[in-house]
């Protein structure tokens, strides 16, 4: 039960030795420590009920219950510690794994998740989320970006321009995330950068979640005329999706500079072109 820790000059990431799940992030430069647990959950997609026939589909996210199912309480882990990278490979199930990674000099924790093919043999559509839980007192507020530029404050079960009668406690609090979502208690800020647009929310104080994959079985009656099933390539067992979430822990004062520059590096990441060696021929535009 030795503790599972990866670190570089700026960050230390600790995992629960019994479950293999993320347990704490430490910003060594600022002396900040934040207990953070992260796991994958799934919402059972609604197939309509006696109150409302509305089904969860391509246009409409509507989970059947407000409480998502935890994918697994623990993960098989493998620790890789090298000079140029430290990473913990987490295997949750046959269709969900993640690598938590730190490179030297990096000021964010990289979580590379791989989800799919989502099994639907039980006739339940599933909407998979990655959820981060902390003790931060966020007072019902969280922050999401709009196209990577403006940051909007969101308040649970509230709309700034009309009196909201909240009928969907989960979906009614989901917002589009183009590049980042963050929560703060006024001192410490936890930011998650995404590498693509996702749905996200903070449904409890100190918690934030991002939807990484969906596999549905029914049409939501908005015109598509088919379920969001995404069979993927042959044999059509379902799309496998891989992406990355970057975690930044900082003081509120310093957080913006950190996530804005990192988001630029993420959106305009360098491009790699390869070539065999020694086969070049001189070439001048003339």
């Amino acid at each position, binding site marked *: 039960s030795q503790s599972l820790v990866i670190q570089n000059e700026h960050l230390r990431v600790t995992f629960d030795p019994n479950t293999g799940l993320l347990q704490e992030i430490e910003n060594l430069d600022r002396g900040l420590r934040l207990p953070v647990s992260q796991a994958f959950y799934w919402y059972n997609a609604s197939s309509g009920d006696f109150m409302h026939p509305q089904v969860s589909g391509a*246009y409409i996210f509507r989970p059947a219950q407000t409480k998502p199912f935890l994918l697994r309480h623990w993960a098989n*882990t493998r620790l890789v*510690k090298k000079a140029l*990278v430290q990473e913990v490979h987490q295997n949750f199930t046959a269709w969900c794994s993640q690598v938590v990674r730190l490179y030297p000099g990096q000021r964010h924790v990289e979580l590379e998740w791989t989800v799919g093919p989502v099994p639907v043999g039980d006739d339940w559509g599933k909407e998979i989320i990655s959820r981060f839980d902390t003790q931060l007192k966020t007072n019902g507020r969280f922050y999401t970006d709009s196209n990577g530029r403006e940051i909007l404050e969101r308040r649970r079960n509230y709309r700034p321009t009309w009196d909201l009668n909240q009928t969907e406690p989960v979906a009614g609090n989901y917002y589009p995330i183009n590049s980042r979502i963050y929560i703060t208690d006024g001192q410490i800020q936890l930011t998650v950068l995404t590498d693509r647009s996702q749905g996200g929310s903070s449904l409890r104080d100190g918690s934030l979640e991002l939807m990484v994959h969906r596999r549905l079985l029914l049409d939501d009656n908005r015109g*598509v005329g088919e379920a969001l099933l995404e069979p993927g390539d042959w044999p059509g067992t379902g799309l496998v999706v891989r992406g990355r979430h970057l975690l930044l822990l900082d003081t509120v004062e310093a957080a913006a500079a950190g996530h804005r520059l990192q988001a630029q*590096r993420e959106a305009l990441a360098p491009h*790699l*072109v390869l070539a065999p*060696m020694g086969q*070049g021929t001189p070439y001048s535009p003339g």
Partner: protein
Amino acid sequence: QGSSAHLRQAMAVAQHHDAVTGTSKQHVADDYARQLAAGWEKCQVLVSNALASLRGSKEDFVFCNQLNISVCPLTQTASHFQAVLYNPLAWGITWTVRLPVKDWAYHVRSPSGQTVPSEVIDVLSEGSENFRPELIFPASAPPLGFSIYSVTRLPSKTPKFRDCCSTSGAQRF
């Protein structure tokens, strides 16, 4: 002759809300992806021509679009290859390059001929019989510019051990 017109056209078509939000029938979504892929294919010729004229030498440039699943036929077979890192940002960056390779020891040289520290790790999860070696090295590129790293395979033996500490939360749990 490369052209970005195809990608521009595909991006224009993909402004439709169905493409942005994924609310189209499957075959329409597949066609959006097909158009974007065809557009990117044409752009690769354009980028190769640009690199050739900027470098003053024409290479058989290869774009590995599946590096996110550790697939790149060139680096997984060649003993010598070049890695060109283009930086679109207006400021210099350092980046950790990860490339699937076929062996366990490589020599990486920077644009100035210096040796760059590099390592090969096995990316497959435990329990899998075959290995999936991946070369890692830190690289940097100037603002709106590119750097060329040369990679040479060294004679090596498959490591006697896998990376340390295969711990199974489940078993201990």
